[in-house]
């Protein structure tokens, strides 16, 4: 029941967030396009959040976050990392994860859920690999802090 309620609340806030978010600066990246541009990335992040909520390995680490803000920030971050016309305006990765003591198990679990969310959105293996290759560079800033 709790999961259902949380999922519904998440759905409502995310629908709103996705509808509000637009960005039109020029970019040059096949990866960004391969992820479906900002709207595609927003959808992937949305699906990722649903997956996180139901994953006992990582859900506790996300307890109490501002879901709309998180969705916007992560979407912007992936958009920027993939070469899209966005700017991540959240706090530094090291600062965000300070004191969370993110384990390897949790980092792996999040990577797994991201991959599954990308598959769910028909992102090609090629684009998945390229994005993961860039995201794993954040590993030292996220784990064991």
């Amino acid at each position, binding site marked *: 029941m709790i999961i259902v309620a949380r999922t519904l609340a998440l759905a409502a806030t995310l629908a709103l967030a996705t509808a509000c978010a637009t960005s039109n600066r020029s970019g040059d990246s096949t990866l960004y396009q391969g992820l479906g541009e900002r709207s595609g990335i927003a959808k992937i992040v949305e699906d990722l959040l649903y997956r996180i909520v139901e994953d006992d*390995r990582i859900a506790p680490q996300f307890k109490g976050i501002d879901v709309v803000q998180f969705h916007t920030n992560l979407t912007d971050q992936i958009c920027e990392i993939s070469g899209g016309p966005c700017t991540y305006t959240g706090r530094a990765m090291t600062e965000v994860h300070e004191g969370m003591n993110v384990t390897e*198990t949790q980092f792996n679990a999040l990577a797994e859920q991201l*991959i599954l969310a990308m598959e769910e959105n028909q992102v090609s293996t*090629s684009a998945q*690999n390229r994005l993961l*290759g860039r995201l*794993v560079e954040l590993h030292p800033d996220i784990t064991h802090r």
Partner: protein
Amino acid sequence: MKPSTLCRLTLVACVSLAPAAALKADPGSRLWATGGVTTIEGTAGGGLVPWALMSGYASDEEWGGTLTLSRAETDDFTLNVTGAALNWRNRIELSIARQTLDLDTLGAALGQDELSQDIFAAKVRLAGDVLYSDYGQWSLGLQHKHQREFDVPEAVGAEDDRGTDVYLAASKLFFAAVLDRNLLVNVSLRGTRANQGGLLGFGGDRNDSYEAMLETSAGILLNRSWVVGAEYRQKPDNLGFAREQDWWDVFVAWIPDRRLSVTAAWADLGDIAGLEDQRGLYVSLQGTF
């Protein structure tokens, strides 16, 4: 079926499965294919070459393991391997394997049907992560091998019926490296006195010392379920009665789920005990818990 029989069967099933199910809900959190498969020596790796990867999918808060059955058939020999491995927190891997080499062609002449050895192995991840570290993942491993029937190896000049291989392995996955596919590269350096991996004993008349052997492999992950690649394993040549060549193979591994992998390879094992060009198909089935 009589009720009593059903009860007994159910009880056996419950008693044997319940503890495992209670302790282990899934095979672990590491990403698909990052456990490799199981070598003929029971260690996590490819088919012939040990990798720095740890068996199964346990991550730093988990434990897990694998069970493996493998078989290779060449013109004159058949190798069967059964193996089991445990992985504690992606840090320590302990494994056992039994190799049985059926002497299909030589058996009658030698008056012995098979050669066989047991392998007790340990591997420690020293540093790094195959996916997340710039310098890759580094592991140190031991394989203690014990002949079960030493008559034939001794007759052809092997010095010892047991030996311990030591290896240092490095593995790294390069994301989107080949046509945007992930590339896994492994290099191992092994110190060994083993003849034909130990099936013909350890040390010999031509050489009786440890030698350093290079073993390497590379695989491309077509997606998260399919890996294709090749391996090369340098070998000593200790026995005077017959030359020994390096091994190599090309493989394809199918990993439909973390719980299961199926590997097929075409392996060239060179000359074995004087019989030339031993090439053939290798198949390995691995379950992960």
